[in-house]
């Protein structure tokens, strides 16, 4: 079969403007080549900054602001689309090549009905009449398993869920009957249980319409389910390019091996549950507007060990952390900390109570004042809680920086001068500076690339061994639970549906929700999706 899309020696550059220096050109992508046949899916995988989205957009002959395609060829049906010129490119975009963006919520116009937006490009290109396009949209809604396909298009974007919106966007891309679709991380922003629906829908739709696709993601387990081939990228260069089976089962490059193995960590669970450091008993909480978000929560955190709280977005797991910190005092129930009742409201807590419980935020970017240096950020709790000043304070900051494996050279840097992983490490050091007994970690790794996240988890585990601090680790990722937790609590719609030692929670017999959650986590295995779909009744996907 002849190639539909053929990329030859692609080279993409951008101009960087370092302040105070002359502008210079940086190469984002170099020497990338691949072929894609009709009806096949190529996965592009890599960390942020690997150039995968840039390559995906090059298939539409498009470069984001300031990005230039400076070399190579992008052949679509044998013709180089880079040489088409402005009008020629406009002909193929949205008709022959379509794009599905990462955040569907941001990509839809909130003021227009979904149906109108789904068929817009098709009508614009005059591919079908309005009646035909509407009919095709309904067909696609059905293929993608959206509820009430006939009337779905009459809804506005805010009236459907995130997963449905992502599928509507896929319908938009499929509507003009394109030859190629570029999926740019379509499931990254979704919960695992939603992700599996969307993945299944996308896979089914690709099979039905025989469209070729580029699938961009940072999650190897996801790409293994939908792709035929995989290209692993790093810093704009191809690391490895092969079939899914070869990449997953016999990776050749060192970097690919690290990516494949990153999710397979498994920490030894503590032999015994130690005494409780934190005890939450029958706690309910509601927001000031009267909305009940937590119902009758009871759990305990063993001393020097880790409790993982797992659940989807909206399950109330972050709210529970807010209740423990006192930002949202419980409406019922009480919390005991180290044998003493914990003051419910933050403003009534003593300095010592505040010191003993620390929080690590999800986004290190916003959790640190951008106008303070690392020295000020880590130094403040030292001065505030222990009255350290001058040389003693500097020595302690240096010690903390060594503990997080960064070193004293970072003292006078601002957060903007640190990488994502380093920022999260500084946030950990700030928490450690207070010598806490309990650290609440609110998804501290979810915004990081997998290898960087692994480093943070290893650091947290090592710090626990050294300082015997307890963690409450909030996450939606079962793999992280396996890597760090001693005990687990599963939350769903504001209730704890299952809790106990990890080995017990993660082994059968399961309750319905835990079963669904565990089965929805993609495994790095070819054919996993099909197997799960067979055993699982897909409510929203009409198979």
């Amino acid at each position, binding site marked *: 079969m002849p190639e539909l899309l053929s990329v030859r020696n692609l080279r993409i550059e951008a101009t960087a403007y370092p*302040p105070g220096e002359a502008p210079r050109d940086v190469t984002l992508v170099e020497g990338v080549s691949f072929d894609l046949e009709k009806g096949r899916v190529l996965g592009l995988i890599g960390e942020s900054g690997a150039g995968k989205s840039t390559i995906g957009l090059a298939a539409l002959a498009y470069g984001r602001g300031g990005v230039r395609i400076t070399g190579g060829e992008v052949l679509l049906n044998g013709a180089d689309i880079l040489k088409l010129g402005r009008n020629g490119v406009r002909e193929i975009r949205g008709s022959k090549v379509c794009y599905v963006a990462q955040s569907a919520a941001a990509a839809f116009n909130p003021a227009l009905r979904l149906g109108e937006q789904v068929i817009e490009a098709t009508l614009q290109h005059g591919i079908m009449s309005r009646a035909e396009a509407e009919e095709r949209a309904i067909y696609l809604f059905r293929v993608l398993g959206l509820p009430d396909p006939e009337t779905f298009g009459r809804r506005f974007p805010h009236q459907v869920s995130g997963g449905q919106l992502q599928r509507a966007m896929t319908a938009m891309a499929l509507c003009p009957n394109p030859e190629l679709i570029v999926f740019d991380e379509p499931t990254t922003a979704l919960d695992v249980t939603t992700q599996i629906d969307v993945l299944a829908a996308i896979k089914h739709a690709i099979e039905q319409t025989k469209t070729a696709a580029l699938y961009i993601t940072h999650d190897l387990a996801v790409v293994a389910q939908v792709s035929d081939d995989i290209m692993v990228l790093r810093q704009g260069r191809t690391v490895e390019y092969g079939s899914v089976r070869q990449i997953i089962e016999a990776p050749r490059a060192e970097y690919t091996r690290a990516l494949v193995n990153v999710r397979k960590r498994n920490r030894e669970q503590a032999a015994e549950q130690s005494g409780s450091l934190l005890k939450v008993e029958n706690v309910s909480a509601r927001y000031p507007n009267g909305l009940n978000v937590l119902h009758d929560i009871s759990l305990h955190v063993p001393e020097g060990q880790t409790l993982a709280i797992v659940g989807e977005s909206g399950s109330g797991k972050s709210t529970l952390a807010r209740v423990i*910190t006192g930002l949202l005092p419980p409406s019922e129930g009480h919390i005991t900390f180290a044998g003493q009742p914990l003051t419910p409201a*933050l403003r009534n807590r003593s300095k010592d109570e*505040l010191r003993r419980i620390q929080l690590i935020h999800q986004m290190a970017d916003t959790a640190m004042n951008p106008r303070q240096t690392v020295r000020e950020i880590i130094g403040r709790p030292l001065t505030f809680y222990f009255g350290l000043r001058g040389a003693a304070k500097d020595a302690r900051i240096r010690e903390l920086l060594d503990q997080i494996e960064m070193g004293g050279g970072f003292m006078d840097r601002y957060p903007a001068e640190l990488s994502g992983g380093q920022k999260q490490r500084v946030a950990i050091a700030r928490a450690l500076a207070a010598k806490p007994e309990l650290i609440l970690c609110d998804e501290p790794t979810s915004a990081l690339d997998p290898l960087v996240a692994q480093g943070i988890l290893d650091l947290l585990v090592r710090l626990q061994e050294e300082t015997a601090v307890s963690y409450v680790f909030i996450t939606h990722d079962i793999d992280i639970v396996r890597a760090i937790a001693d005990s687990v609590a599963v939350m769903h719609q504001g209730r704890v549906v299952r809790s106990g030692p990890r080995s017990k929670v993660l082994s059968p017999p399961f309750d319905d929700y835990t079963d669904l959650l565990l089965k929805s986590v993609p495994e790095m295995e070819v054919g996993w999706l099909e197997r799960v779909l067979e055993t699982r009744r897909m409510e929203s996907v009409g198979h």
Partner: protein
Amino acid sequence: MNLRQAPLSAWIGMAGVALALICAVFAPWIAPYGEGEIVGDIWLPMGGDYWLGTDNLGRDLLSRMIYGARTTILVSLTATVLSFAIGMFLSFMAVVRGGGVDQALSRLNDLMMAVPTLIFALVVLAVLPQETWILILVMAVLDSTRVFRIGRAVALDVAVMDFVEAARLRGEGKLWIVFREILPNTLSTLLAEFGLRFAFAILFLSTLSFLGLGIQPPTADWGGMVKDNKEGIIFGVSASLIPGAAIALLAICINLVVDWLMKRTSSIKGGRDDA
């Protein structure tokens, strides 16, 4: 703040501001003639004994410009600084305290803004005794409503950030949160606003003088001088353009300095990478 790294534009701005300040401070020693002294015929052209000519009453224009700098800068600058002090304090208070305090202050502010500034000023100044400090105070209070609006908006954006929550969780007091966490992150917006509001203050003062409720004659101020000499324009006399140009130049100079300060403070890398 490293002066040696300042760009040329900042130096020009600083030179201009310095010149105006020197004129203001040392007016009696610099000015060749007295403030209200009538030295010759009216609207004499430039040159000769009177470098900038004379005004509508035959007073030396240069001397009046120098004395005018004193009044104009004193009143406008003090009023602007005061309005920022009041506006920022109240707006940050509103944000940090929230709830009822925020509502009360914001609605009071709306009430003040509902009345046109000029009319408000005219009514108040007509009732109160005509003294400079009252003029400054009235200008400051009226202008602080604008500062409050902006201060509250930028502080609200910062106050919901995680690092402010982190400070609250640490147990920091309200003052620490306002001055160490919120203020540094709102400074660049407020500085930009300062440059603008100062120029407005000069214009506002001129308007008030024009209407007879600002600076009282024979005291010179640049806005009043534009008014005094405006008839001259018809006869091709440039006497009213000179104070006008001085107002424009001072506003530009101040904004050049502010731009530089803003670039320093808006850099989140401590200005290290800036030229």
